[in-house]
Structures are given as C-alpha cells and as structure tokens.
C-alpha cells in the first residue's frame, strides 16, 4: 500500500489532470425469485481528486446503492452490476477478493449513518483502528497505536489516550461518529464514501461533524462522495451536487447553480418542498404523489407521473442534456444555453 507514503501536499497538486473516479453507465439490479428491482439505471459521473460530490435524493432513489457499488459491498448472489467503475485507473468491478480487501479501508474508505452498527461492539475503538493500520500499512503494534492516537487527536476527540480503550457503547453518538471518521481515514484514503454520516446526529453535533469532514477533506486532499437526503447538508459540504431520482442522475452541476437555478422539475419540486422560515404562512409547493416503485419503473422519464410539465414525449427516456459544460439535466425541456 503506497497510499500512506504519499505526502499530503502531493494529492491535491495532482488536480486538473484526470479524474480520480470514473463511473460509466452503472446499473444495479436486485434479482430475487419473485421480482427484479432496478435500483440504479445508468449512472455516469467523475470525481476529481480533492473534490466533494454530493448525491442528493430521497429514500429509494438509489443513492446508497450507488455508493455501495463503488466498494462492491452489495450481496453478490442477489445483485447484478454492470457498467464501469474505476478508481485511480483500477477497475473495481473486475477485482478479485484479495485485491478488494486491499482496496477497502485502504485507498477507498467508507463511513456510515449509524456508527454503533458499523463498529464491532466487542473490541475497543483503539483495537479496531490498530487492526486496520496493521493490515493495510504493515505497521508494528506500537507504531499502529501511536498512529491511532494521532488519528483520534485529528478528529478532536477529547482525552484521546483514554478513549482508545473505550468500547463503542461507551461513547456518545457524536464521539462515535468522530471515531468512525478516524478509522476511515487511518490509511489516508484517496476516496472517502460517506453514507448519510450526520443523519442520526443532533443539530448541534451535525454541524460539528460536517465542519470536521470539510476541514479533513481539504487537509488530506481526499475526494469525497457524500450521500444525503438533506438539502441543507448538501449545500454545506459539497462542491458539486448530483440529484438522483429512481436510479438516475436527473441533474448535476456546481452547488451554487443547482441550488440557485434548478432546471429539472424534480429538483425544483424538492427545493420548493424543503421547508424554511421564509415560507411561513404560505402553502408549500409539494410534489404530488409518492416516490416511484423501483420494481415497476415507467418506460420513459421516471418522474413524469408526478411532473406538472409532463407531455407525451416524456414516454421515452429523456437523454442527458448538457446545458453548460458543467451542468447536466435529464429532461426534454432542458436546452443548452
């Protein structure tokens, strides 16, 4: 594993060359005996080194499945994945089991929504970090312990030396999430996958964790793929946003452009139905109907049944329209500027 030996500064300096992550036409199907669920239906994107791409979507939009596919965490016997995923020119979908183990927690790391269920409850936090560092970087026990201590300091856990010997249940929710970030960053990953890491936290703790992630991301020059359903969190953390609906990206672009001038009717509806104080006394412009059933997707645009602009032409899948070099909208009404 060479990742740990790369000085911090170098990773950020490589920017502008070529993207760290390339995903091309990714599809994920869950196949069981009685039905097939089309969870991800042709997603393509790139993430540059040091960039934060946020996938914003509601439950069942396929955002977490996309993230898990990046690390091949989906159950292989039920899942059919096609398309291409490369991280640093390594083809993730063709990796064998040993190579996959090297990748996970090494070059690519992941943090989850509920740290209590992602730590092993019978080992201390310190043990779990030390094990990871020894496995990936081949450090000795004492060096690994030193590294674990540095990591807890880095994520600002108070009295870190004592906390190394804590079991996960002895920590508060915010502290556990910090410990999980320390574990994920223990081998200097180039790509961090974050699956709603602040959703289970209280408001005053959520902002602390977001600020911590933001600072570490810049300091370590990591690329981050961040999944959330919360528009506020997406705005806080991301460089670019991809809005996902029914397993497809319906709109992507820089955070300012997407939030200020949403083009896709779903993005517009999502932002209009995200409540804020300025809407007091006004009726909310809710999107009618309920989210789509992934086991019975409509043949054309999946949002058409809920869309107020729907027309007969929506019965065929809309193509990706690049209205600007950095902005994609998947809607027949979108026109390049």
């Amino acid at each position: 594993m060479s990742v740990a030996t790369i000085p911090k500064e170098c990773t950020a300096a490589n920017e502008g060359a070529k993207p760290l992550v390339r995903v091309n036409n990714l599809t994920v199907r869950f196949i069981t005996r009685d039905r097939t669920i089309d969870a991800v239906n042709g997603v393509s994107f790139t993430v540059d080194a040091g960039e934060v791409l946020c996938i914003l979507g509601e439950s069942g939009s396929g955002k977490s499945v996309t993230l898990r596919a990046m690390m091949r965490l989906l159950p292989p016997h039920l899942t059919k994945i096609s398309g291409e995923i490369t991280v640093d020119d390594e083809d993730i979908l063709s990796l064998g089991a040993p190579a996959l183990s090297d990748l996970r927690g090494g070059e690519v790391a992941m943090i989850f929504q509920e740290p209590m269920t992602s730590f092993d409850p019978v080992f201390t936090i310190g043990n779990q970090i030390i094990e990871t560092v020894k496995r990936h970087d081949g450090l000795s026990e004492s060096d690994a312990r030193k590294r674990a201590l540095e990591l807890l300091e880095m994520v600002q856990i108070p009295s870190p030396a004592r906390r190394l010997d804590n079991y996960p249940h002895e920590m508060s929710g915010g502290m556990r999430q910090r410990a999980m970030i320390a574990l994920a960053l223990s081998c200097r990953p180039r790509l961090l996958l974050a699956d709603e890491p602040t959703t289970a936290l209280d408001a005053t703790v959520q902002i602390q964790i977001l600020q911590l992630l933001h600072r570490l991301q810049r300091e370590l020059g990591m690329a981050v793929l961040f999944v959330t359903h919360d528009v506020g969190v997406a705005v806080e953390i991301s460089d670019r946003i991809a809005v996902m609906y029914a397993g497809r990206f319906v709109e992507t672009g820089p955070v300012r452009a997407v939030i200020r001038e949403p083009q896709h009717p779903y993005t517009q509806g999502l932002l209009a139905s995200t409540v804020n104080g300025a809407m007091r006394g006004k009726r909310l412009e809710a999107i009618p109907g309920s989210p789509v059933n992934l086991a019975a997707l409509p043949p054309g645009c999946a949002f058409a049944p809920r869309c107020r602009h729907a027309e007969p032409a929506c019965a065929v899948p809309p193509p990706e329209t690049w209205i600007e070099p950095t902005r994609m909208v998947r809607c027949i009404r979108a026109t390049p500027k």
Partner: protein
Amino acid sequence: MSADVLLEVYALRRYFPIRGGLLQRQVATVQAVDDISFAVRRGETLGIVGESGCGKSTTARLLIHLLEADAGTITLEGRAIGDASGLTAREFRRQVQMVFQDSYSSLNPRCTIEDTIAYGPTVHGLSWSAARTRARSLLGKVGLDPELFATRYPHELSGGQRQRVNIARALALEPRVIVLDEPVSALDKSVEAQVLNLLVDLKNELGLTYVFISHDLNVVQYISDRVLVMYLGKIVEVGPVDSIYGNPRHPYTRALLGAMPSMDPDNRGKQATLTGDPPNPINPPPGCRFHTRCAHAEMCCSTREPKLAANTGTGNPTGDHLAACHMLIPGSGHSAAPAAAA
C-alpha cells in the same frame, strides 16, 4: 391571557428509574421531564424543539396520559383528570389525541384502514356502521380516496399515506387538541410538504389546536405560532415564533439556531456553535443545565438554577417571550445581568 388557554401544564415532572445489579435496585434516575409549566392556547400551534434526550417526547406522552406524571397537573379548560369536578381519562383522551412518528408501528397490521379509524369511535359509543361511515369521510378529508383505501392494510400503503391514516384516526374522535410527535420526520421531503399542507388545512377547517414536536427547526418555524425550546428536561425558552427565531435570548437557543445548515451556498462553512454532545440526562449538571456547554457560563450558573423570566430585550412589549438564563435576570450575580434595581 388565561381565558384563551385550552391546555395547561403545571410543574410537570417525570423521572425514570434505572435499575441494575443483582437485586435490580435503582441505581440512577433519568430526569426526563423536570418541573415544566406551559400553556397551550386555543387555536394555536405550539412547537416544541430540542435535541434527543431533552424530554420532548416524554412531554408528549405525559400530555395524553400515556405515561403517568410523578408530579404536576395537566388541565383541559381548567379541569384536571381525576378531580371530583374534573375529567375522566377517557373523556380527556377523546379531546386530546396523538399522532406518532413511526407511521407503521402505530397502526395495527391486521386491521384494515377503515377499521383502524373506526375503532376509536366505537369504544366511545358509536355503532360500527356509523363509525365506518365516519372513517370513510375522514379518509376523504386527509386526501385518500375511500373507495381505494378503506379496505387496505397498512403494509399496502406508503409512509406518507400511512401518516395520513394516523391523522385521520386522531381526528375520528373529533378532538380539540392533537399532539403531533415528530409527525413528518420519517417522511421524504416531497411527502413531508404534502403532510404539512394537510395539517395546516385541517387546523383551519376544524379549528384544531396543535402541539407540534420536532427536532427540525425549519419545520417548527414554518408551522408554529409559539415555540418552546427544551434542554435536558427543562424549558429554556418559550415565546412567539418570530421572536424566538429573530431574537433568541437563551445561549442554547442561539446555538441551536446557529447550527442550522444554511441553504445559501455563499454562506456556508460557519463555525460550529457548540462543542461536544448534549450531556446524559442521567445526573444532569447542577444549576443551569446548559452551563457545561455555554460560552457565557459564570460561577452563579453552576450553583443556582435560573427561572424562566421575561425577555428584557427590545421588540417584545407583551412579555410573552420567556427565557431561563441568569444573564437576563436582574441581580442574578452574572456579570452580564441587568442591574438589580431595573
């Protein structure tokens, strides 16, 4: 003021014992709700906000008598439960209903939607056929077509539809107050907006009074007339929504509002307003319970508990806005407090 008070809570307290060891002796106490008093006025929406463990859901359960209070009284139009001239628990519950966060676990999976809604009224003396008729008309009212939904089971419905059924069930007894405990927190944003619109419509149409509990400050600001902020089992601040959001007086309220992610891409990356997690409600700190995380804490804060006092700031002539902070209490001993003579 007392004329328009519908539901009044006085000195309400609920502690939960924690048992442990071989003999299951009581080893600690969670002070979930500790001596809180507030009033809900006729026709208003009172929002209750706070972080996990602050006692807001316990307050909800105490309000509808799902939990017995250790001390304190709850009165509906001046009548308490169990008093000689008061209400029976049954009569009280007919008038005060509740909607829970988890729309699935609060519905009986073996009952059709229609029977679920009709059950309450039959307990209170309505015939099944009349109750079913009422259930169907309520389904229409909450935006579900009775022809399609009346005979379905909860698992056949989406989360938003199930929450509509829960609202219909709460309405079936024609209550005057509905306690809503995180009613939209489990829903997707697009569905959340639909349910909020429905709640506003029903309130206007039926003249309801809501107690709306949520951790989502945006939703509370949208729907509430007055807001009550809780921290570790205590009320730290209460007042009209614009006053609370526009001119928060308690350092905790300020921190909570400051921690809301801004929706403006040019205004992000602000500093976290607090460090650390909320303390455990087992053995809360003495004095002001917030003093361990408060930037303005002084000696007096850790020894004496501040009482809710009127906002001495500008822009609130009615004295409706109360906060429990030594910095606002004249002569409290805090260096930022107003002079005792004032």
